[in-house]
């Protein structure tokens, strides 16, 4: 195995181990005991939490901030695509033809979205106050990863740089806010449990 790939692979192992550690700690802490008598059901509420409750028409964080929301969605899709490509590269498969061109185009677009989110954080006073170095670093590393992935598809001589960038990102992921990769799902689940028990989610029909 070449040293760059070895570095990225080791980073992946460390990253996955850390994510599992976070996940198992979550399980270990367990659910808080709730003695109140439920008014609703948890399972449909958890389903609702992951589906219709995420509808951008329902969330002010989406519909009041459409440009940022759209940029955020593209940025996250770019991240999923980059992760998928990392797996492909690791398996020594490199896309080609039209497929490759589409991927390159999308990754450039997601890099621009990531950059715009970073610039917004830098120039908006309220966001600056809210931010710590980790916010900038996380945003920068992910954006750079999208960009380098796209460049590597254009010029495969860049693979060493690519694997270094991937390795750095994977090593950093469990340290800062990027670990929301794990906690996002836990938070949606917890919300579903809370609102489900209290009969708030899924919203009742008229006539209750």
């Amino acid at each position, binding site marked *: 195995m070449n040293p760059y790939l070895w570095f990225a692979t080791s980073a992946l192992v460390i990253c996955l181990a850390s994510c599992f550690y976070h996940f198992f700690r979550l399980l270990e802490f367990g659910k808080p005991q709730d003695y109140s008598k439920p008014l609703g059901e948890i399972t449909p509420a958890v389903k609702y939490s992951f589906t219709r409750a995420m509808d951008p028409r329902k969330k002010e*964080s989406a519909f009041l901030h459409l440009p940022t929301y759209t940029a955020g969605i593209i940025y996250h899709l770019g991240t999923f695509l980059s992760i998928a490509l990392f797996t492909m590269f690791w398996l020594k498969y490199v896309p080609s033809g039209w497929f490759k061109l589409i991927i390159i185009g999308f990754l450039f677009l997601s890099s621009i979205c990531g950059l715009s989110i970073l610039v917004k954080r830098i120039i908006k006073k309220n966001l600056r106050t809210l931010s710590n170095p980790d916010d900038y670093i996380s945003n920068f590393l992910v954006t750079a990863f999208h960009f380098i992935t796209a460049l590597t598809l254009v010029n495969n001589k860049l693979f060493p740089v690519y694997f270094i960038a991937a390795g750095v990102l994977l090593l950093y992921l469990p340290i800062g806010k990027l670990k929301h990769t794990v906690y996002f799902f836990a938070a949606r689940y917890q919300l579903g449990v809370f609102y489900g028990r209290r009969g708030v989610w899924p919203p009742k029909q008229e006539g209750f």
Partner: protein
Amino acid sequence: MEKLTKEKIKQGLEVLDAGMDGKLFTHLNSCVHCGLCAESCIYYLAFPEGKFIPATKVDLISSIYRRYITFTGKVVPGLVGARKLNDETIVEITDLFFGACTMCGRCVPHCSIGVDISYLVRKGRQMLAKMGYVPESLQSTINTALKTGNNMGITEQEFIETLKWLEDDLRFEVNDDTACIPLNEKGRNIIYTLNPREPKFFPLSISAMAKIFHVAGESWTLSTQMYDATNYAYYSGNHDEAGIITQYLFDEIQNLEAKTCVLAECGHGSRAFRWEGPNYLKKEYPFEVITSVEILANYIREGRIKVDPEKITECVTLHDPCNLARTGGIWKEQRYILRRSVKNFVEMAPNGIDNLCCGGGGGQLAMSEYNERRMKTGELKAEQIRKTGAKIVVTPCHNCVDQLTQLNITFKLGVQIKTIAEIVADSIVPQDQKVISKNESVEV
């Protein structure tokens, strides 16, 4: 403000350390600082500054958690924004957790991730309570409840006198000399609770409920010992005191052998007793607990009372108390009642589980030091009301009634503020009465 000591820090951190569970761990680690929750909060809408963004409140508690409990926060605090607890942070935290959040929870479903912001603020208040930083104004209300059994310090004699003249009024109103407000009766179907503001300032809401129970032929009672549905220790975050107050009511329900406790129109009282109470006491209740809104809706649905919408023809709107609707699941019921009891019901926007807090929640009405902020955040509600063109604003919460009454005067809204029970009592159609004997019970 008392100086922070090592001992206080230790006590505060226990909430995050010894009190850690999967839910707290999740929410402490989930915020990504996107700031997109800002416009969902009445404080940020009223004061568009960074410190009023819900995420700032999340960050206050999670930065302390990171600093003292996580490896990264201990090793590289600057990188992850981990903060030390010191006199300066205590001032900031107290101001934001007590004076800049009503724990209304509106930001929560709007958060891009799903961070339970109001839950974290509650945890923050719990830390402050452990460290002895509950605002004195709020604490004095709690002390009164602990000492006298009700947060207004009403004596039993004063309470009974009020109920006696309300009973005379009831007899006159329903034209039935057997009509009564049963006191301390054992084995009744229902024990009804009150917000102490009712006997003190708004006795008509007690008459309204008594009239409805009478027409419905309900088997009910009031306790003259312990009738307070409120629990301000829920707001202060002092779980020990919240537990004692819950226990008072629990014991009285058991003592009177009531089958069901019906909670007065009180948002936080409903939440504190129905949802948090069993957890304060660490046991399930052996009796049913429902809100008066639910029982009124049931009476109408089951035909136990009849209402005539022609009796209230003015335009009526509804304010949903956050703790009853958004975190209590009761918001269709009040609409069901109003659509049948008044001729012209209009919704304010937004409403239901997305309603804006009136600004008086979270104990704000008990903390006079934040009055200016409270009225400024309340202006949003005043504007919502004005836009509906309604002449009557109904709300199933005496705390909200209080805030709306102040908004009505300050912003010259020219509306009447009423509870759901008052609306139902005004629109009720008299029926043939049947008197319920002590041992007779009617299923709820």
